[in-house]
Each structure stands twice: as structure tokens, then as C-alpha cells.
């Protein structure tokens, strides 16, 4: 079914974080706990989908020279709306995500997909692509946050995970983020190589 195949493309073949290596800034900083990761993933998916739709609607109207500023204004509009809604209804999550909510604007995925995909395809395809990329982003983010939360603070979703295990706080700090994403990317590549090896 087309949708199933698209989602597989988004999560595995063209996963924004693990394969295209876009949107790294928020994924490393926010993936210290699953709630943050999921929250950021949802916010990014919302912004990505809406901006993809609007941009593909306006793609004929926007002249090429002012392409980037227009896209950025549309994306920034959605991000600010998400920011206000988060501040009003989910203050705890907003405090956790901190500076990374406004930074969704310059998150390379959104402008990347807007330029690469939305400005060239019709509305329906852009909507699907926005959703699929968002799901891929959230999926990868959750993987990273689960690993970092368990190893880094011996918690999962805020609850104590394994009694007596002394957490390695380095995983919560910056180096841990780099190591985790390196490890996950290595595993994904290894599976890819083996699969390609066998199939060929």
C-alpha cells in the first residue's frame, strides 16, 4: 500500500536523522529523556507537515529570488504558534525543551524538506512527505532518548528503571549524545550493508 511504503521510506531508507543526517541539533540536545524527545518530535512533525502543505500551496506564487525568506517566514509562523501553545498548555515540556522550540525554525529538516520536496510537489504528496519525515524524525529521536535516558539517568519515562544500577551521567551530557547517535547510525549502516550484501 503506498502509505505503508512511504512510512518505511521515512523511517528506514531516508530517516532524516540517521541517514540524511539533517536536524541533528535538536535531536542530540533534547534526547535526554523520552518525554522531551517525543514532545520535540511531535512539535517538529506538526510544523513540518503544516509548512510543507502551505509551501506547496504557494510554490507557484513565490518568485525564486525570495524563495528562502518566504519559506522561513512560513516555518517561523508555525513554530511561534507551537511555542505559544506549548507555553500555554504544556509549560513543563516547554521549560524542558527550552531554546530548542524556537530552534525548530532552523532545524535543517524542515527547510530541507520544504526546499527539496514541498516546493516541487503537489499538496497531497508534500503532506505525506511531511508526515513521513516527521514520523521518521520522532522515531529516531525516541530511540536516542530511550538509550540515553536508561544509560544516563537509569530512568524510563521518569520512573526508576533498574534498581542499584549506577547511571553514567555522561550520557546525559553532550559527549553521550554524540556517542549514542554514532552507535545508532553505525548499527543502521551495518544492517544496511549486510542487507545490501546479501541481496546483491
Amino acid at each position: 500500500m503506498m502509505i505503508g511504503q512511504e512510512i518505511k521510506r521515512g523511517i528506514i531508507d531516508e530517516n532524516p536523522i540517521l541517514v540524511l543526517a539533517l536536524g541533528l541539533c535538536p535531536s542530540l540536545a533534547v534526547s535526554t529523556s523520552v518525554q522531551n524527545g517525543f514532545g520535540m518530535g511531535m512539535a517538529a512533525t506538526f510544523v513540518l507537515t503544516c509548512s510543507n502543505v502551505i509551501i506547496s500551496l504557494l510554490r507557484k506564487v513565490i518568485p525564486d529570488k525570495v524563495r528562502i525568506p518566504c519559506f522561513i517566514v512560513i516555518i517561523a509562523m508555525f513554530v511561534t504558534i507551537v511555542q505559544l501553545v506549548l507555553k500555554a498548555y504544556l509549560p513543563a515540556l516547554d521549560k524542558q525543551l527550552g531554546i530548542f522550540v524556537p530552534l525548530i525554525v532552523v532545524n535543517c529538516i524542515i527547510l530541507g524538506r520544504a526546499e527539496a520536496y514541498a516546493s516541487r510537489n503537489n499538496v497531497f504528496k508534500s503532506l505525506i512527505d511531511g508526515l513521513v519525515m516527521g514520523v521518521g524524525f520522532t522515531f529516531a529521536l525516541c530511540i536516542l532518548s530511550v538509550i540515553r535516558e536508561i544509560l544516563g539517568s537509569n530512568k524510563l519515562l521518569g520512573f526508576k528503571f533498574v534498581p542499584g544500577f549506577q547511571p553514567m551521567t555522561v550520557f546525559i551530557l553532550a559527549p553521550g549524545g554524540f556517542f549514542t547517535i554514532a552507535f545508532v547510525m553505525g548499527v543502521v549502516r551495518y544492517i544496511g550493508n549486510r542487507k545490501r550484501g546479501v541481496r546483491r
Partner: protein
Amino acid sequence: MMNPISLIEISIGAIFINNFVLSRFLGLCPFFGVSKKVSSAAGMGMAVIFVMTIASSFSWVIFNYILHPYHIEYLRTIVFILVIAGLVQLVEMALQKYSPTLYESLGIFLPLITTNCAVLGVAIINTDLNQTTGSPYTFIESLLNGIMSGVGFSLALLLMAGIREKTEFSPVPKALEGLPIAFITAGLMALAFLGFSGLNFFPAVGG
């Protein structure tokens, strides 16, 4: 009124303590993209410093003279990013026209910088409260913070490019070639920069 202590603290802080790339995770996409060759890394570093300076000065002026008095601070995201995008595109065109040589080495990085989280990051951080003195940034402080964050970014970028050029020929396991090994290198560098986190010059400043 110029408080030299906080100026030093800001500059050292921006380069070492909370280095933009290695401890704040800002500006990673171009950081991993461009750091394959030292030459392009140097060009990118210069461009980032230049853009961060004009971005932080413009954003400070706009925030304190337009957004703050009219209590529309919530617009800062959209206004800042619009200003940065517009500025960068204008500067790129000007450079392309008037100094092709400079454009050759510096200009091609400019469109890359508009989607750089570090530039918008520094603009937004400048409008928050200053960590050390607790009062909002003055113009000089925010300008300095912009320049020094750019220097911090370029420092990390050059270090990274140097190392990555070496890892090109080292026996890296097949699955880890390319980006994963770059991340591990960045992780090790972040570990080293972690050592700076406790550094502060005048503990009594806050007390």
C-alpha cells in the same frame, strides 16, 4: 559602566565553557557537512563569525528598540530569522558582485548559514538574561558574545576538520565510516571541552 569581568567571562564562556557546537549542540548540520576539508572549514568558520556578529548586533538592536518597548517579544523568533535570512542573502549578492575572490572563499558558505541553528541560537540567547550578571545583555556584551561564539564554532570546526582528514585513511570498521566516526570524534572533543565547564573567573560575581 562597562563591566570588564563579565566581558572576559562572556568571551571565555562562549569559546570554551559553553562552546556552541560541543556543549550546546547548536549548528551541527553544517558542522558535520563542511568539516571534511580544512580549507572549506576555515572558509566556513570565517563566514560564521562574520554572520554571527552582524546577526547578534542586528537582533539586539531590534529586540531592545522595537520588540521590547511594544511588548511583542514573542515575535522575536520570526523577526530574527527573517532578518538573518534577508541579511545573509543580501551580503551574499553583494559579495558575489563586488569581490568575487572573497566570494570564492567565503560567499558560497553564506546560504548554508541561514539554516544554521547557531546563528539564530546566538540571537535568541542574546535576548535572554545574561548568565553571569543576571541583567540583560548590553549591546557590547551581545556583540562580543556573537563574535566569540563564532570563534568557538570555528575553533571546533577546524579541530574537527583536522581530525577528520586523518581518519580518512585510518582503518575504520566498515559500518562506522563517514558520519558515525565523525560523531565519535565530536563526542571525544565534547568530552574534552567538558573539562572547561567548571571554569569561572570570579565566583563572587554572582554572590
